[in-house]
């Protein structure tokens, strides 16, 4: 392998790493303004994300949904689409899992969580299909429709949770708990952390995504459409069909977030449970550059960030968990700006 070829291959990785470092540096500089030592804050982040089995478990608990939404956004990127709708898709997926657990309470154990997972995938997929269909057949831009669909999903889920299946034992905006047979196993190494077999499911999805993109005809067609809709069309690929399929798969992947959340953690659907998992998925996919390993690494990074910043509230005087959003924003910005990189390259 020539030097140039090696550069081509590793340049994206290098760029991703530099983006993360630049984003973190800028974000930690903000903590300095708040009168904290950035190094101290950084060490707290590391410690509380990875300091114990429990901490690592919590990090992985947050990694699970981010891996799924990251894949959801990534698969759309591959097909040349922008899925901003993962938030809505995962909301309805979680709702579907919870409703299944209430309505089909009689289902026995191994079948029950599988049915709930299928419902979550299916509902998310349906929500993705709407945007895909609108794009492919009506030409409506998926960015706008998925934003709108996020709000519709929020409204619908609120109605279903509060009016159709409200929790009679609680004042909180949530559904009734699912039957016990629906709950999935926690991974016991991590102590009390609610990290469950859903993590294994998410990793399996990541592997499946890699297989799809690298080995299958469908993955090849999906990427071809993303590269050039017209060339794909001339080659005999129906871009509309592929776009719809990409949105369906993306919706399904996002919908699976409901498995970990409902069957592995809350045991019910709680309104507003997601701290913007869908949007953070955009950052995960961008940083991962469509590569399954990259997406997994990015999901872990943002999961750790979420967990790590959670402890800032108690461990520092002035820095709050809000730092999480700031760091994510700065990382996304430094990943996104091609021109910025050209500019840097010219100087170096």
């Amino acid at each position, binding site marked *: 392998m020539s030097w140039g*070829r090696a550069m081509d291959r590793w340049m994206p990785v290098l760029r991703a790493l530099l983006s993360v470092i630049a984003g973190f540096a800028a974000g930690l500089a903000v903590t300095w303004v708040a009168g904290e030592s950035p190094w101290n804050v950084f060490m707290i982040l590391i410690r509380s994300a990875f300091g114990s089995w429990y901490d690592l478990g919590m990090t992985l608990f947050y990694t699970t949904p981010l891996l799924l939404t990251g894949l959801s956004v990534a698969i759309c990127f591959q097909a040349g689409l922008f899925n901003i709708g993962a938030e809505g898709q995962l909301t309805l997926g979680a709702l579907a899992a919870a409703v299944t657990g209430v309505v089909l309470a009689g289902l026995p154990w191994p079948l029950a969580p599988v049915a709930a997972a299928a419902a979550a995938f299916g509902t998310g997929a349906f929500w993705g299909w709407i945007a895909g269909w609108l794009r492919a057949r009506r030409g409506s831009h998926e960015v706008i429709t998925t934003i709108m669909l996020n709000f519709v999903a929020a409204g619908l889920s609120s109605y279903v949770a509060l009016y159709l299946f409200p929790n009679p034992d609680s004042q909180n905006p949530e559904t009734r708990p699912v039957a016990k047979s629906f709950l999935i196993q926690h991974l016991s190494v991590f102590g009390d952390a609610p990290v469950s077999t859903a993590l294994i499911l998410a990793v399996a999805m990541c592997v499946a995504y890699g297989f799809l993109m690298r080995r299958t005809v*469908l993955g*090849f067609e999906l*990427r071809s459409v993303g590269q*050039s809709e017209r060339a794909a*069309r*001339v080659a*005999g*690929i129906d871009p509309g069909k592929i776009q719809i399929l990409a949105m369906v798969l993306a919706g399904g992947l996002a919908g699976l977030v409901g498995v970990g959340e409902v069957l592995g953690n809350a045991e019910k659907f709680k309104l507003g449970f997601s701290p913007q998992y869908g949007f953070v998925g955009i950052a995960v996919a961008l940083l991962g550059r469509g590569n399954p390993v990259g997406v997994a690494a990015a999901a872990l990074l943002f999961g750790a960030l979420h967990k790590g910043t959670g402890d800032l509230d108690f461990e520092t005087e002035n820095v709050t968990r809000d730092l999480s959003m700031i760091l994510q924003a700065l990382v996304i910005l430094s990943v996104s700006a091609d021109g910025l990189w050209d500019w840097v390259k010219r100087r170096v």
Partner: protein
Amino acid sequence: MPRTETSASGAEAPAVELVGLSKTFGSVRANDAVSFRVERGSIHGVIGENGAGKSTAMKMLYGIYTPDAGKILVEGKVRRWRSPQDAIAAGIGMVHQHFMLAGPHSALDNILLGAETSRRAWSWLPPPLRPIDRSAARAKLQALAERYSLPVDWDTPVERLPVGIQQRIEILKLLYRDARILILDEPTAVLTPQETQDLFANLRRLRGEGKTVLIITHKLKEVMAVTDRVTVFRGGKVTGGVETEATSPQELADLMVGRAVHLQVKVPPQPEPGQAALRLRDLKLTGREGGVERLKGVSLEVRSGEVVGIAGVEGNGQSELLESILRPAELLSGRVEVLGQDVTDLPTAEIKAMGVGWVPEDRHRDGLLLNRPVRENFLLGLQSSAAFSRSGLVQWGEVDAAVKRALEEYDVRPRDPDVNAGGLSGGNQQKLIIAREFERKPRLLVAAQPTRGVDVGAIEFIHDRILKARTEGAGVLLVSSELDEVLALSDRILVLYEGRIVAEFTRAQADEKRIGAAMGGSA
């Protein structure tokens, strides 16, 4: 004869004089010591084939490119432009081939854009915030329109106006800015014959009012019809400058093409034509925009073992004809048969899988994934074929073996399946496409503009391959705007004009003059 000496200044100086202009892009010498002069109050043709350098020269004159060497004199003064704005200020205007008009806006706004004036009463406001004095602009335009007989409906969104009127708006834009020298880039490419006549009448009127007009074109007939003098480009150089009255289309063509490069295709004897590989019956198609009928009942047949060439000026329905073979479902009416089977209701993939090789007219847009490696571009369209896929999985091992063989056989350079298609030269990209499309062993080959933007060596190679397909019994439909190419390769030639086949010639009957006449609509 190009002249190189600097002319006298003052009123007698020519409108434009280019002296030794050179421009290099990468390794390509687009202009090599180009010199010529354009007299005031004349219509001057600038002709040459694609890539001959005529556009580069005009773009330097208009300030889009900066010359590497040489001088530009406008009305006797040496000029250096930093941008087109400088050229505009010096009285030069250009009508681009793709109009610079915003569809939803009125003709008035499109014209006055960037040259807005305001009433005195608003002068206390910062200039960008001042209201536009549209009535003053309208009055000035109305006067211009009357003087040059260029009537336009000022208030209709330009997207609702015919192309000829849109071009008129572009010309008015230049006149509004007091341009004295007008450059028109391929102005007739999108016009109907009637609109072309109107345009020429307008240009003559402009000349009568003392304006200087430069027309970039490759249509000899039009050069003969409207210009006073002609400058001919070939291979980045000026090969001749002649008075139109003293020349003939034949002489211009000679200057344009140069004998050495002229097509010398050895055509093997034609095999006995067999069954119909492609049969089109009365195809009608309406364009997406404007609802204009683009195909008005096209019928034709391509038999196996013959090359049928479609000649015609671009924009006479070629693209639509090609589209409708790939996607007959979008036809308004008509019937498409491939290898004896009615495919009118079939999707593209199934039609191609029957054994159709396809060389698209725009390879960057329709033929390649520019940011993906050669390997994937080779697979594109073959991904579902039995050779390269099993139960939905791509057999990359077999793909790699086939790519390796094909790069060798079709002499694609570099022989590297990992390099991105966008990094190949035009000729190698086209050879890659040919390699891919021949992988199916096509029984019908559709080749559109197969040698456009391709170097000489590759042209020969591609022509040989097309003829080889014919020898092996494939039916070939060749669509090309290069008449030479059509003449050299085709067993039969059909002329497409305004969505109709207006003439048919066999190889024996084929004669450049008669075909040219048919292409111009006077068959």
